[in-house]
């Protein structure tokens, strides 16, 4: 992250990179940035992008047209940022790529739990950025993170499309060549410097063949929470703390999260699991109900119902 871009007249000469930075300009809406990256970064056709975003093709066509008009009218330059502006602009660009990936990894709407093509396109964009900006550790870290998570795609749901939790996943269905590639990228990096790096280290722990080192995962999440102050990170940290053997400490980490993330079914879902472990069954039943009111994908709803039945709660 410390190396300045190669010296040449435009900062970074590559025409493709200039286009990608323009597509991820902060003056564009988040939706527009993601669509433009798929159009001009990944080279997808409008119809393909529309399918990936689950919108009709005319809607996507209009969104891209509006975005291109804004680029022209507002004077968004086809220029890589200055060395001083690079970290911030690169951060926006990586966020666009990771949002594409996460939408593919855990779909927030629709009948499918994950959309591997979208996640695959995000990884391709990550490789492209890594080639164009080879000195940037943050890109390598993000790429490692995405590859490690994506390597488990075949094991994350069963033959009937039901979510399978990490602990229950068949290790044989993980793509071990991809895991090796992700771990190889991580080995190229120094001590953890950024958020993607910490997340990739967590993903690496989850990819290990042996039992997960939950205390280490909990520690990595604590580091990540210090850096991001993100409520989603705190939620994940709570899960890791519970797995490391302290469900009560985990439960207290959830305090107040329902208010910060009122639309997420994951907060009450995790609370329900923790309360089950502590044998506080009435509270667990309420938490399952709250999670079922909020859950939006069919597969995750089925998972919650199954878990509630397993616990004998109704």
């Amino acid at each position: 992250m410390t190396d300045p871009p190669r010296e040449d007249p435009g900062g970074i000469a590559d025409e493709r990179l200039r286009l990608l930075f323009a597509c991820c300009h902060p003056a564009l809406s988040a939706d527009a940035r993601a669509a433009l990256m798929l159009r001009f970064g990944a080279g997808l056709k409008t119809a393909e992008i529309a399918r990936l975003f689950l919108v009709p093709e005319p809607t996507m066509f209009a969104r891209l047209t509006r975005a291109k008009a804004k680029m022209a009218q507002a004077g968004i330059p086809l220029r890589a940022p200055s060395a001083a502006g690079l970290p911030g602009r690169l951060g926006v660009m990586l966020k666009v790529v990771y949002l594409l990936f996460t939408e593919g990894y855990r779909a927030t709407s629709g009948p499918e739990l994950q959309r591997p093509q979208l996640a695959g396109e995000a990884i391709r964009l990550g490789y492209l950025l890594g080639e164009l900006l080879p000195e940037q550790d943050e890109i390598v870290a993000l790429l490692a993170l995405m590859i490690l998570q994506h390597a488990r795609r075949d094991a994350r749901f069963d033959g009937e499309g039901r979510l399978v939790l990490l602990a229950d996943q068949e290790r044989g269905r993980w793509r071990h060549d991809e895991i090796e590639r992700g771990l190889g990228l991580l080995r190229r990096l120094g001590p953890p410097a950024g958020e993607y790096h910490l997340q990739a280290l967590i993903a690496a722990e989850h990819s290990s063949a042996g039992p997960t080192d939950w205390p280490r995962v909990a520690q990595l999440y604590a580091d990540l929470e210090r850096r991001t102050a993100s409520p989603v990170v705190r939620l994940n940290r709570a899960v890791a703390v519970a797995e490391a053997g302290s469900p009560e400490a985990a439960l207290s980490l959830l305090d107040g999260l329902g208010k910060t993330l009122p639309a997420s079914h994951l907060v009450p879902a995790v609370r329900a699991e923790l309360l089950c472990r502590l044998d506080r069954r009435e509270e667990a039943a309420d938490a399952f109900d709250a999670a079922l009111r909020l859950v939006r994908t069919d597969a995750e709803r089925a998972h919650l119902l199954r878990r509630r039945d397993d616990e004998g709660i109704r």
Partner: protein
Amino acid sequence: MEYALLIYGDEKAWESRDEAGIRENVARHERFMTLLAERDAMRGGKELAPSGSATTLRRRGDDVSVTDGPFAETAEVLGGFYLIEAADLDAAIELARELPEGVVEIRPIVPPRKSGS
């Protein structure tokens, strides 16, 4: 390209400034105008009187109504503007960053259109 830098803010906060606060703000705008002049980017700009002094005309067909007050009753009001010349949006953003104000909206100026008559 030409851009308008539209300065928005909380009018109550502007009005409650003391003498020293106003002098400080004026000095910072003077520095901003010097910066624009150095870059040959200054094309104009004015501070607007408070929105309580505004009058709004609305035309419906041939009918024109005249009412007291600004067009939009919002917490943050337009307080002034600059017209600047900048190579592109990034250059305009770089200049707008130097403005000592809370909210600055950057709008490109449309080049003069011809009616054809």
